Every structure is written in structure tokens, then in C-alpha cells.
């Protein structure tokens, strides 16, 4: 924090202006690329699931439907904005904004490749948890402020689901924190590069399993998409939203998926690095920029999201709670004890 004061009060104004300019440029680049990724994540999801179900997916707009996300965006932008009677207007307006902002703010601490991060803070991982818990407010408020029973039930379901799985997700990453000895995401990636296997997913396979499951529940995705179960709740917490406010929820959800994929890539799959034994065997791979490896990992995780959605049916609500509290949390706690013991013994 005092670093900010030093930066702002520095006598050399030119470098200060340049610093601020660089930060703004970084924010613009990250936001632009992330939102483009979000738009095309929806396209790929429809394409991938379409082919898995022996359909074609979007095909009409542009080459192989490639302009579909843009057409959807334009459509949503010009749709009528409907607000239900007796809705709590200020909170109804606020809810999608909170949801979207909490997802976009998380982008600021993610290192996309070596030394490219908007804010390289020491508590990066905790910051991500804090922002993901803020996102829950958007969902609960949307459910309550809409003055609709479907929305309200969806909001309540989502709130309890997110709280339950947040614990499991936090605990699953404690193993990674212990292995890396840091909460800074860049430090975690560097620690993985130093580690013999090059990825924490191998020694931390239990933590990785818990993280993946909790990540699906945190982002309200199948098989845990009960908050927006369309067969019983129409669309859950955003039933009453239309036009651009609906688009904000939609974008926020896909941004949250991208962020979860990035956390998986950074904390378990080695981020922008690849294991040393691979680069030793094939040295020419060192010339590939780090962002390529990072994106490959993120895309694979996103593909996994789609794959699971096309494959698994939805869980019942009591099953969801039982998995969270009776399976994932004990597993994550066991993983922490195991990691700690092995670290003390010097095995890991």
C-alpha cells in the first residue's frame, strides 16, 4: 500500500505518468482479450456440445457460424429491458454489476505469462477467493430483488452451494500454498517450475480433484447447475432479467469459468511454464512464448467444462450438499495433513 504512495508522490512525474499509462494499457489489453475469449467461449461451447450430440451447432452466421457470438451480443444489446413490477429497483440494477465486476476484478491478479500481471500482489490467491465470494452477492440479490419465486429459489440454492463449495475449494488450494510457500500466483508458478514434476497436479492429485469438483460447483455449471436448473426453475436467479442485464450475468458466468480454468492452470498445471524434463528432452520448445502454454492449459480446462456438461446429468440437491460436506471437505483436510506430514519428512 505504501508503495502506491511512493509511486504517486515520486518527484519524477514523467515516469509516474508512464507507469500509470502502462497500467491502463495492461488493463485495456487484458479486458479486451478476456471479453473476446468470453464471447468465443460461448461459441465453442455450443459447437463442442453440438458435435458431441451429433448436431452441427451454430452454422448460419458467418463461416461455420463464426460470427454467432457477435450477432448474439448485438441482439442482446438492442433487446427491451424489462423490470418486473414490485422489484427492488436499486438492487435489481446492482446485482448483475456486482456479479460482472467481481469476475472481471479477479483478472487483475492473474499472471498470464512471466512478469505480465496487472497487480503482482502477495496475497493473489486470497484475493481470488475474496472476489469469488463477492460474486455470490450478485446471485443472491438478483434472486431476491426480482420478486419472483423462481428467481428466489435459484438465488437461495446458489448461495448455499457457493458457500459450501468455497470451503472445499479454499482447502484444496492449501496444499498448493504449502508446496510453494507463497500466496503470490507468480511465485507459485515459479515454485512449480523448480519442482521435479513441473506441475503440482501430480503430487497434489487429491487437491486437484477437489479443486476441479469445487470449481464446477462454484461456477454453477453442470453437474451442479441447480441454481439455474431450467427444468424446474426456468432460469433460476436470472429468470426476470432481459436484454443487456441478462448479458452481464451470462458474461460474468463465462468469465468466472475462464478464471477458474486460469487458477487450475496456474496452481496445478504449471502456468506459463512446462516441466523441465520436457524442455531438456526437446530444447526447441524453450522458444515458444509462455502465453501459448498458459492458453493451451486454460483451453483444455474449458474443454473439460464443456465435455462434462455434455456427459453428466444433474445431481439432486441433497446429493450436492452431501458431496460438498461429506466427501470434498474431508478429502481436502486429509490432503492438507498428508502434504504437511510429507513436507516435514522431506518426501515432497
Amino acid at each position, binding site marked *: *500500500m*505504501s508503495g502506491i*504512495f511512493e509511486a*504517486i*508522490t515520486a518527484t519524477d512525474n514523467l515516469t509516474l505518468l508512464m507507469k500509470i499509462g502502462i497500467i491502463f494499457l495492461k488493463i485495456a489489453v487484458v479486458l479486451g482479450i478476456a471479453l473476446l475469449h468470453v464471447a468465443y467461449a460461448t461459441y465453442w461451447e455450443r459447437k463442442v456440445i453440438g458435435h458431441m450430440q451429433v448436431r452441427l451447432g451454430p452454422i448460419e452466421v458467418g463461416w461455420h457460424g463464426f460470427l454467432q457470438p457477435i450477432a448474439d451480443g448485438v441482439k442482446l444489446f438492442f433487446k427491451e429491458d424489462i423490470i418486473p413490477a414490485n422489484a*427492488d429497483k*436499486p*438492487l435489481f440494477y*446492482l446485482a448483475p454489476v456486482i456479479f460482472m465486476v467481481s469476475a472481471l476484478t479477479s483478472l487483475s491478479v492473474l499472471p498470464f505469462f512471466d512478469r505480465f500481471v496487472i497487480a503482482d*500482489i*502477495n*496475497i493473489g490467491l*486470497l*484475493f481470488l*477467493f*475474496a472476489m469469488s*465470494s*463477492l460474486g*455470490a*452477492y450478485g446471485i*443472491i*440479490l438478483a434472486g*431476491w430483488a426480482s420478486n419472483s419465486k423462481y428467481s*428466489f429459489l435459484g*438465488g*437461495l440454492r446458489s*448461495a*448455499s452451494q457457493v*458457500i459450501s463449495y*468455497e470451503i472445499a475449494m*479454499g482447502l484444496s488450494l492449501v496444499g498448493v500454498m504449502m508446496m510453494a510457500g*507463497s*500466496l503470490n500466483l507468480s511465485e507459485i508458478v515459479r515454485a512449480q517450475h523448480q519442482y521435479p514434476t513441473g506441475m503440482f497436479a501430480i503430487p497434489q492429485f487429491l487437491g486437484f480433484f477437489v479443486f476441479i469438483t469445487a470449481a464446477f460447483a462454484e461456477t454453477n455449471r453442470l453437474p451442479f447447475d441447480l441454481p439455474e436448473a431450467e427444468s424446474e426453475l426456468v432460469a433460476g436467479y436470472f429468470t426476470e432479467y432481459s436484454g443487456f442485464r441478462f448479458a452481464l450475468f451470462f458474461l460474468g458466468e463465462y468469465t468466472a469459468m475462464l478464471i477458474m480454468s486460469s487458477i487450475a492452470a496456474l496452481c496445478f498445471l504449471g502456468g506459463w511454464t512446462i516441466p523441465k524434463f520436457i524442455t531438456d528432452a526437446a530444447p526447441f520448445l524453450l522458444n515458444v512464448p509462455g502465453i501459448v502454454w498458459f492458453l493451451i492449459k486454460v483451453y483444455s480446462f474449458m474443454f473439460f467444462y464443456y465435455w462434462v456438461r455434455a456427459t453428466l446429468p444433474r445431481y439432486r440437491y441433497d446429493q450436492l450438499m452431501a458431496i460438498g460436506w461429506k466427501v470434498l471437505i474431508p478429502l481436502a483436510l486429509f490432503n492438507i495433513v498428508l502434504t504437511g506430514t510429507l513436507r516435514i519428512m522431506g518426501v515432497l
Partner: protein
Amino acid sequence: MLPELFFGYYASAIVIFSLLVVTRSNPVHSIMWMLLLFFHIAGLYLFLNAEFIAAIQVIVYAGAILVLFLFVVLLLNLREELKVKKFIGSWPAGLFIAAALLVIILSVVKSFVPGPAGKYSIEFIKQETHTKALGTLLYTDYLFPFEIASLVLLVAIIGAIVLAKRKKGN
């Protein structure tokens, strides 16, 4: 100058948000102001270079406790609550007690002296990172109080389970 400005903003914002929390007639709105209040308190912690405490403040208070508040409030019947003009009739007495407390606090502010600078200076924290410094201290010098605190929390958890669990046959 800048630190004073920052502190002044956070301090006045915290006071204003606290007032808004207790004066809103809609409990959900109160909770939203409280959320903003918690974020400002986290800002104050950041201001003190206590980044770990700031993050935990947001995760635990805003992310868990306040969501549970919201849960309880959402299950209330708000239509009746909103019609109540004043929740308490004896607000002049409360105002008097609050004013008296303010006078007492203001009168002792003069005798406030900053504590002696110890080992944990800002430079030390910056080098060690706040999380590491706090963790080391908590698990060595203050291990016993830390364990007592966790035991107290465990008792509360078990108590809650005992109260909430249905007896068989009922």
C-alpha cells in the same frame, strides 16, 4: 498528506456507512451497506500493510458471515417489517448513552501514546511478507492462545449442531 487523505476518506466512509446500516428500514439494504462497510475496513487494514488480514476480512466477514445474515433476512417476512416506522421507541436514551461514550473517548484520546516500535517494522513485514510473519508468530509465540481460540470455536460448532439436530422419533 496523501496517507492522511486516505485515512480521512476511509474513516468518514466507515462512519457514514455504519449510520446507513442502522437507519435503513429494509434489512436487505442494510446488509448491502454493511458489505460496503466491510470493504472499507479491509481498505484500512491494507493501509496498515496488513494484507493478509485485509483479505481474510473480506473472505470471512463479507464472504461467509454476511451471506448468512442475508440468508436469515431473506427468510423473514419483509412486508410487515417495512411497515414498522421505528424499531425502538427509546432512541433518545440511546442517543444520550452514545453521546456520553463519545465524550469519554474524546477525553482519553489525549493520553493515547503510540506503542514502542518492535521487531516487526514495515520494512521487516515487506521483506518477509505479512502472511509469513503473521503465521510464524501465531504458531510459535502465540500458539497457546491460538489453540484456545480454536477450541472455543469448536465448542460453538458442536453446540450449534446439538441445538439444530432433530431427535429420532420426533
